[in-house]
């Protein structure tokens, strides 16, 4: 019996393989930047090797202390955060954190953020030389940092400029992460695509805030924050749907994925891979539960290759 089972599992495995630019993922399930630390935090709960890809917390050139607290507040079926890109900087990331991931058999994607176009170019060039980095996810959309973030992501031309700078700095796969806080996400996607992006990921958080009626003050230390979690899923699925129609680039879809059904919704909308974010907080095994649910779905629905499902809702 055992060899048979293994056969089934291996078969399912190969049915699940997807590609994001030059990154081969053994399955479509990635982690969303900033929700999964640098991977090791979740190693006690899941086998990281089972993940399709690991996307680490946003990295900047210099270390950042992050925003004042509170940095997180729960909202209806969602979470507002304003971490403010707290991170040890690219050098300490490369020197101290990345080596720990070398023992795992999975592509590591580094999420990068900068205050200037040059920052992005430099980060790309710095990481280009580093083995163990499969690709870069370019955060042009983080709404928490006053300089940079918001502006790059909300202007198609600026977004394209950042993309070009990153592409110029690296031969690794470049994934540009789009913000939903724009009038036309398709317009940003198109410009970013023409600027040479290999793939897109979406969505970053929605700009939001909460006020405490007792203190009559904003809850978050930083006043504004980014909304994530199930609450935003309809917006995220819509964004993937729209951008899939406009560009031919592979998409990593995210925003409120809790279950395998949520993940499949994104795939049907046009995502080649998906990322699990806020759900990790609720259930540290969420990525694995999503993965096994996807396996079940493709078996039950007799899907030969997960890539058949990508964008299937358009047809």
């Amino acid at each position, binding site marked *: 019996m055992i060899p048979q089972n293994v056969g089934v599992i291996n078969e399912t495995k190969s049915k699940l393989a997807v590609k994001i630019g030059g990154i081969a993922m053994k399955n479509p399930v990635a982690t969303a930047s900033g929700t999964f630390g640098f991977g090791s935090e979740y190693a006690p709960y899941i086998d990281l090797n089972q993940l399709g890809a690991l996307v680490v917390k946003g990295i900047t050139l210099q270390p950042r202390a992050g925003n004042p607290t509170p*940095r997180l507040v729960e909202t209806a079926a969602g979470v507002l955060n304003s971490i403010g890109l707290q991170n040890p900087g690219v050098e300490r990331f490369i020197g101290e954190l990345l080596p720990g991931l070398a023992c795992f058999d999975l592509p590591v994607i580094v999420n990068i953020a900068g205050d200037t176009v040059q920052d992005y170019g430099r980060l790309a060039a710095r990481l280009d030389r580093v083995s163990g980095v499969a690709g870069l996810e370019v955060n042009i959309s983080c709404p928490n940092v006053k300089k940079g973030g918001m502006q790059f992501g909300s202007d198609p031309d600026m977004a394209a400029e950042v993309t070009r700078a990153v592409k110029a700095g690296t031969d690794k796969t470049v994934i540009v992460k789009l913000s939903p806080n724009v009038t036309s996400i398709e317009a940003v996607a198109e410009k970013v695509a023409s600027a040479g992006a290999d793939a897109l990921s979406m969505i970053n958080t929605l700009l939001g805030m909460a006020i405490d009626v007792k203190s009559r003050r904003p809850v978050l230390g930083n006043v504004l924050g980014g909304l994530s979690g199930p609450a935003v899923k309809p917006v995220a699925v819509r964004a993937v749907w729209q951008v899939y129609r406009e560009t031919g680039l592979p998409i990593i879809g995210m925003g409120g994925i809790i279950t395998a059904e949520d993940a499949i919704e994104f795939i049907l909308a046009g995502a080649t891979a998906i990322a699990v974010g806020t759900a*990790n907080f609720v259930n540290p095994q969420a990525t694995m539960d999503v993965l096994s649910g996807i396996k079940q779905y493709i078996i039950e629905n007799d899907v030969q290759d997960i890539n058949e499902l990508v964008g299937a809702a358009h047809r």
Partner: protein
Amino acid sequence: MLITDALIIKQEEIIPGFHRITLSAGEAAKNARPGQFLHVRCADTLDPLLRRPISIHAVDREKGEVSLFYRVVGRGTALLADREKGDRVNVLGPLGKGFTMPEGNGGVAVVAGGIGIAPLYFFLQELSVIKICANVFLGAATKKQLFFSGGIEALGHNVFPATDDGTAGYYGNVVELFAQNLSDSVYGCGPAGMLRSLCQTIKKYNIRGEVSLEERMGCGVGACLSCACKTVDEEGNYRYSRVCAEGPVFTAGEVVWE
């Protein structure tokens, strides 16, 4: 560190709004150290979405049981209080860094404000196992909120109550009361204002002290950086530490109060 659907053995309302829940969670009971917490899923729906951190209040290793002592302050804790014996509640943990157990024979004090006794009770259980008798300064708004003083005495410790309204013990602030009865090391938990003044007292008299802090949490496992708390190291470098990972227990000297 693990995730369990723990069976509820008991759910008690100690006084209105203050509950103690006892869970069957053998692994957690075995591994728990005083000061650590469980990250509790209070509802199965998407609203409320996040887990709630609650300190481990007491442990019965033989029975494989863990108790939490909590105050109903919002939706999550209200939903937890609605759960009954026989229901299951999903918990993640034990998480975080607990109190450092005292060594040697210096005097040990414990200072608790209100619900702050929650984790300290477990600490006192463990102290009595290693035969250390502590002076326990219990502060509360009023007499009936001086929790578990009988149980603490039964563990072999001395209880010094203080109430804001003078209905029992010292009439006034529990930190003041402690300042009049200093010891070599002190362990504190309670509202932020109280901990702040406890840390000041600790620094002023240059004694050893640890406090357990609270911050809003996302993941509980160190991944999201939402539970930041400003700390300073011995070289005077400031940084944000994670209450869930580097804490919730910090030395009084580390914590930067703003």
